[in-house]
């Protein structure tokens, strides 16, 4: 009985993600993904980056990107309502599971999301997937899942964004360098 309790306790985070995942799938059909459930990975990760730039912040600061160097940024940020990033780096492989990945993936199976890019390394150890959220013919959001043996990154941008704009934001605003080359990508 004691073992049963101990095992149940150890599985609590997984159960929480599974239970939460169902609710999230039902709720999150818009361009904003629910990714806070991934926070449990922070205890195991050797490095965690969590960025939240919401609509109010984006709107307030957009006009201050007015310099020559900021022209590209200003264009890329036009209409963007939020940038959300969670990135976990681990020392060893196998520190995160399909459960955590599925807690995000399940939200991308909604009718408004479609996968536009999959980049896989030759060894299959790196997998980057890019999804767009569309309402009619309007892009309303983008999601990038980068899954490596020792790294799991989710980037969620709310607003009209495409791969070209995404590339201009890489390395800034908490968006990591994703290394997505458009000519090497394939559409679903």
């Amino acid at each position: 009985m004691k073992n049963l309790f101990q095992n149940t306790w150890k599985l609590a985070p997984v159960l929480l993600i599974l239970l939460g995942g169902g609710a999230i799938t039902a709720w999150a059909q818009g361009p904003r993904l629910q990714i806070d459930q991934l926070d449990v990975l922070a205890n195991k990760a050797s490095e965690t980056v969590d960025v939240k730039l919401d609509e109010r912040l984006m709107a307030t600061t957009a006009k201050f990107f007015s310099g020559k160097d900021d022209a590209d940024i200003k264009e890329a940020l036009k209409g963007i309502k939020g940038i959300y990033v969670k990135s976990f780096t681990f020392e060893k492989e196998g520190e995160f599971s399909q459960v955590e990945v599925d807690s995000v993936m399940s939200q991308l199976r909604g009718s408004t999301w479609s996968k536009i890019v999959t980049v896989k390394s030759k060894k299959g150890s790196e997998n980057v997937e890019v999804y767009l959220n569309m309402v009619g013919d309007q892009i309303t959001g983008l999601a990038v899942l980068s899954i490596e043996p020792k790294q799991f990154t989710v980037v969620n941008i709310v607003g009209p964004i495409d791969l070209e704009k995404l590339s201009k934001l890489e390395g800034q605003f908490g968006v990591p360098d994703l290394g997505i080359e458009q000519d090497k990508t394939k559409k679903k």
Partner: protein
Amino acid sequence: MKIKITIAGLVTALLLSAGPASVQAHGDGFNDAVKIIEQFYHVKHQAIPLLARAGMKAVGTAARMKGGDDKRLADAGSVRVAVFEDQNFDSRGQIASFKASLQTTLAETWSPLVQTLAPKNEEQTYIYVRDAADKFHVLIVTIERHEATVVQATVAPEILAQLMKDPGEMGKALTEDATINDN
């Protein structure tokens, strides 16, 4: 000569006007962040000597008067700093719990901007933002294995924009502006 007199005057004025250096119980984000660090890590913050605080403010103010580069902090008088030095910050594998506690406490009035955690080295950085009329309050919590800093400062929207663009570097620069006394 005039500059020397101005700086001396500023230091005197700040010495007279600055409140007690210890963290006062305002129940706002700054004090809450300090308390959470103290409770979670069983550490105590150190008060920055009054003279040092006055000196820091005078330097910042003088730089602004000269039109220097040191304009990141919009209002030197609003800077609040708590420092933890030569103490042991061991999160005992529960760094996510600390992050969650901080988030829960600050969520009501502060918005999280960037959070970075590196448990192996006990390194953490949290940057929170909230409105302050036409400016913004920024709360920066930096924790390392043996020291930590909590800084609350007022910044102009332009600086917030730069903070969003490059959170790591700008957060570091703001903390340095608020804590380094190069007087």
